[in-house]
């Protein structure tokens, strides 16, 4: 899997759109720097699904104290966190 900021952000956004649709919300307009929890597009359970998918897809393991807005709060931050974790940033 080739990892670039753009491809990671696109994949995460697609997953968020999928999760939001489960509860009838449309996340297709989500911007890269928007704080995901603050948008209300996905709830805590949806965030759990997102993070479980993130760990599995990119083969990383998150510690509970890493689940912060600073690390993972937006598409951009999630992409940067992953690239840092993979030593690509």
């Amino acid at each position, binding site marked *: 899997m080739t990892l670039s900021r753009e491809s990671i952000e696109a994949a995460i956004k697609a997953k968020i759109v999928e999760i939001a649709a489960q*509860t009838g919300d449309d996340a297709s307009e989500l911007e890269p720097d928007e704080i995901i929890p603050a948008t209300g597009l996905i*709830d805590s*359970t949806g*965030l*759990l699904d997102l993070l*479980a998918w993130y760990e*599995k897809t990119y083969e990383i393991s998150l510690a509970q104290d890493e689940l*912060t*807005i*600073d690390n993972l709060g937006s598409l951009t931050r999630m992409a940067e966190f992953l690239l840092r974790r993979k030593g690509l940033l």
Partner: protein
Amino acid sequence: MATPIHAPRINNNDDEVKVLAFEVEKGSHVRSGQIVGQIETDKAVLDIESPVDGYVLSLVAQPDDLVKVGSVIAWLGEQADEPVPDDSEMAPVATSRDLGSITAKARLLLKKHGLSADAVATINGRITVEAVERHLAADTSRLAASNRDAPGADTRETPPEIPGVMLSPSREERGMAATVAWHRDHPATGYIEIEYDLAPWAKYAKKMQDDKGWMMSPLLSLMTWRLVEVATTSPRLNSTMINDQRYQYAPVNLGFTIQAGETLFLAVLRDAASLDEEAFVSALGDLQRRAAGHKLRETETSGATVSFSSMERWKVSRHIPILPPQTSFIVAHAAGRDGKGVLGATYDHRVLNGAQVVAALKLLSRPASD
């Protein structure tokens, strides 16, 4: 490691065989292939051979016992003093009575009602359907118990006439079926709900989330932690009824329902009361994330002693959860409206009364520090 000797199938139509005799005794050394005993059905007698070299640890069945095909009739070990595995589920099923004295239909009827032939008076020296029916008629309480203890025994459904396909259930689906069956057969369930003010909990959770910079609101985890606290101080909530006696659990094993894709888990955080609030929130978050990723360990999918279920996500205003097996209290958290929320609980009325449930729900409706 102990090696079982199973009762073999001799005839396709016989699900039980009779143990005729053993040629060895407990403590004997046997060699692989050595004949250790004989079994028979109506049609044949068969030697039983030892599958391995070893010592006879236990003769589970006795001569003249009827045993289920596939059940363990003896245990062998590499050492004479090895512990014998629990074979309680494999014990002889029927009687020491002569197999030939029981008609085939009577045997089916005995099996259907879980009766031993020894309990039934014979007619002209034989156990017939009439003899079994007489016994059942004279012991209606036993009949009722038999029906109760064998749920579904008489109610197996035939497939619909409409074309379709029969699909095997997943492990999780089997678990849910077992939970529902326990809920149906054992507790005397009730359901109570109260309305509460959402603001104190929302404020408390928001402060913690902001202070820690967490991505997810800890609201549900904090409410669940409150349940752990309440179950600790009110141990009746953390109990169940076993054979007409209340069994009070020592640890609080917190069950939390998690919908992961198509699968509904009851993820279990064991000995939750040994944690503090923040450690609990962290541990429950970790458990939830692993459940969402279908990575729960075996010990995290069973053994709940008290539980919490939220359907807030689905915006339902009320749901009445099924009690997990051998528990008496599960909280139902639903969506709020106009600043008010609803907290309910399904409970086992054998263990808890309505006043106790209301008291617990009121404690859960606000943070402890509020």
